[in-house]
């Protein structure tokens, strides 16, 4: 990943950790042309929280010169969608941004 995208991903992970804390289960990113697609998996993600992430992505895009798109999921919903093409692609091709790896393959929101 190039320096601009890597910086955008680092700041994304930092902001998401600050916002969601222990509820944050996974952050993975793929560079696509001029965009950075960032999959975010959060326990019990509310619609309002998801909507607010659009503004966060806009700010990241302005600061880093790369268009950031968040693809946010609630952990339970992500588990249902796990076999679908976009989600498979992100799990296989996405670069993890969380130190210590990810647990989005495990059952969440018990």
């Amino acid at each position, binding site marked *: 990943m190039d320096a601009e995208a890597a910086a955008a991903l680092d700041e994304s992970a930092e902001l998401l950790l600050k916002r969601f804390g222990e509820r944050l289960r996974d952050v993975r990113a793929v560079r696509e042309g*001029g965009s950075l697609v960032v999959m975010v998996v959060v326990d019990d993600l509310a619609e309002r929280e998801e909507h607010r992430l*659009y*503004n966060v992505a806009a*700010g990241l895009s*302005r600061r880093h010169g790369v268009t950031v798109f968040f*693809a946010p999921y609630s952990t339970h919903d992500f588990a249902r969608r796990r076999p679908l093409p*976009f989600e498979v692609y992100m799990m296989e091709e996405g670069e993890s941004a969380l130190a210590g790896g990810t647990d989005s393959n495990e059952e969440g929101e018990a």
Partner: protein
Amino acid sequence: MSAYSFEAAAKYYIQRAWVHFRAARRLQGGSERTEPLVVLGHHAMMDAARALLFALEAPVDGCEKVLPAFAALVAEGKATEEMHSMLHESASLFFKIHRRSMIPADPRETESLLNNVRTILREVRDRIEQRYGLIEGL
């Protein structure tokens, strides 16, 4: 034969943006599915952004380049962060229904998108009219 001017292009795109927006408003409330509204709303946003980029003599080739070009306008003080955020939100909604698997558009998000489209269209129309004069049909 004279070449197309940036003025002609700016007027073309802002007129087309309004056509997309009016089509979305006609559809609104007529269906339980809101995805067509997102598609039309997003196209209206993209065309409005391209219209402003032409008017500011900074045209781009292709929708993918519109968002970074608009962010550059913000950095130059020629557009506001709020405008860029509305454009980015529109692109995020379009990405959500277009790329992700089986994700529906939320009606509240769609309503918010169309409100933002109206705001952007008026802002861009006014700026183009200040620069080039009245636009036919608007």
